[in-house]
């Protein structure tokens, strides 16, 4: 029994040695494999949700994302919708947004990029407030707070 324990211990130690030796040269492929695991995707609270609608103008595209209410189990009572203006974004943004695609406007948004001023005018009673309005590397983004 004592010998078996010794052999098992040494074998496990040598397996660990091999693991460390192959870890760094294999890190890229191990990481790629790990990134393909089912849970290895960003929670919509961080990614902003999937794009459900695009409004394309000459130089600028407005991406309207799916409203996010994700909680640990089921959905929360409050959430947000993220809008991204990409491309050559005008200095003044004035848009009427229908985020739930029911053909009725839900809110109006005005952004003055130069002065970093953003104003939200709710139309639907589901719209709460402006959570984030910020310049990004691709243009401008806002998150608007929503009730379920």
């Amino acid at each position, binding site marked *: 029994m004592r010998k078996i324990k010794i052999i098992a211990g040494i074998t496990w*130690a040598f397996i660990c040695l091999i693991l460390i030796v192959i870890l760094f*040269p294999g890190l890229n492929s191990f990481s790629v494999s790990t990134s393909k695991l089912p849970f290895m995707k960003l929670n919509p609270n961080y990614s902003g949700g999937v794009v459900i609608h695009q409004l394309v103008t000459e130089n600028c595209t407005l991406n309207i994302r799916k409203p996010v209410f994700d909680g640990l189990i089921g959905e929360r009572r409050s959430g947000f919708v993220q809008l991204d203006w990409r491309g050559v974004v005008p200095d003044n943004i004035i848009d009427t947004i229908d985020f739930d695609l029911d053909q009725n406007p839900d809110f109006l948004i005005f952004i003055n990029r130069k002065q970093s001023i953003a104003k939200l005018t709710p139309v639907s009673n589901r719209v709460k407030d402006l959570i984030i309005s910020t310049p990004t590397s691709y243009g401008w983004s806002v998150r608007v707070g929503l009730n379920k």
Partner: protein
Amino acid sequence: MDNILISSTMKKSFGRSLVYVLPMLLLTFMFMTGGRPDFSNLSSALAIGVTFLFVNILYFLMHYTGKTDKFRAIIFIIFALTLSFTLIKNMLEVRSSMSFSQADILECKIPFCHLVIPMMILPAAFTNSIIFPGSIIGGFADISSMVVLWLVATLVLGRGFCSWGCFYGGWDDGFSRFRKKAAIKKLSEIWKWMPFAVLIMVSLTAALTLIPTYCDWICPFKAVTEFEQVTSVESATKALVFVSLFAGLVVVLPVLTKKRTQCSFLCPLGAVNTISNKVTPFTIKIDKNACTECFKCVEVCPLFALGKEEIKAGKVSVFCSKCGKCVDVCSKNAIHFGIKGIPAGVMKNFSRNLFLFVSFLFISVFSAGSIINMLQSFFNLIF
């Protein structure tokens, strides 16, 4: 005379130490240069050369002197300093600031660190997603690479990760070495269970809010890496918490107690690594036949892993991070690096050599990137 003879058993001759360093020389050369050294950029070649020599000299000295901890601590502390330097430099280049903005969060550009991992588990299980505004793959410190690195390291080293791999641990390890003697000698050992309480608290709050609460509200190392831009009372409060915890747990208490108080009392990942200590093959063994119960090892242990009860029972606790401090201080070689399954007092040299090779290879390659980066910035200023 007898003591000197026994304590020198881990020492090796110059030639024999060189033989032991050869595989490390080969592997670190391969990993640092990719097998194809590039001499076209002088500062880059110099930085790689200096790092390569530095790590291999440390490894040689571990074998030649038979001492572990002081050489481990050098690379461990330098790792912490250079990693913070690299992170801050990267942030200043990319964002012109140490703080991250709302845009960085929206664009998921926050570098990932292993301390987030305990908070990811419950949300990943329930929502099938990761609650962190970082990159899943690609870019600086992406989530997949950091998870793989930590997973392998904790499987192989257990809590040894906290002394041989964590790029934050070097901060309080460094400050714990400032004084020769501890000003505060009596600290209740009950506090060593605190990381488990923190782990439960941050795991539950992260699951309920889907926010990595430790990073968002507690992590002391935000003070030396990155933090949220102070734009409100809430963000100002967070910044105050980060700085206070860094000052208290990473600087002042380690200086006064000579213990790694942040690692011992707060770190939730330390608690997880404590659990994985049960799996790793490497451990610290106590040879009861050789032990004189002088308890010098208990005094020097920086993580409260050794108490008088543990010594009397001949077993170190799961809190051990295998830093080697207790091994170095034991004049009888009664406490030594070991492999599970091998009885205490047997195959001491073999066990130490195997553990040192595995753990040192990990820290030398893991830290090389940030050491090279800092040296390269330094050489760029000169040339």
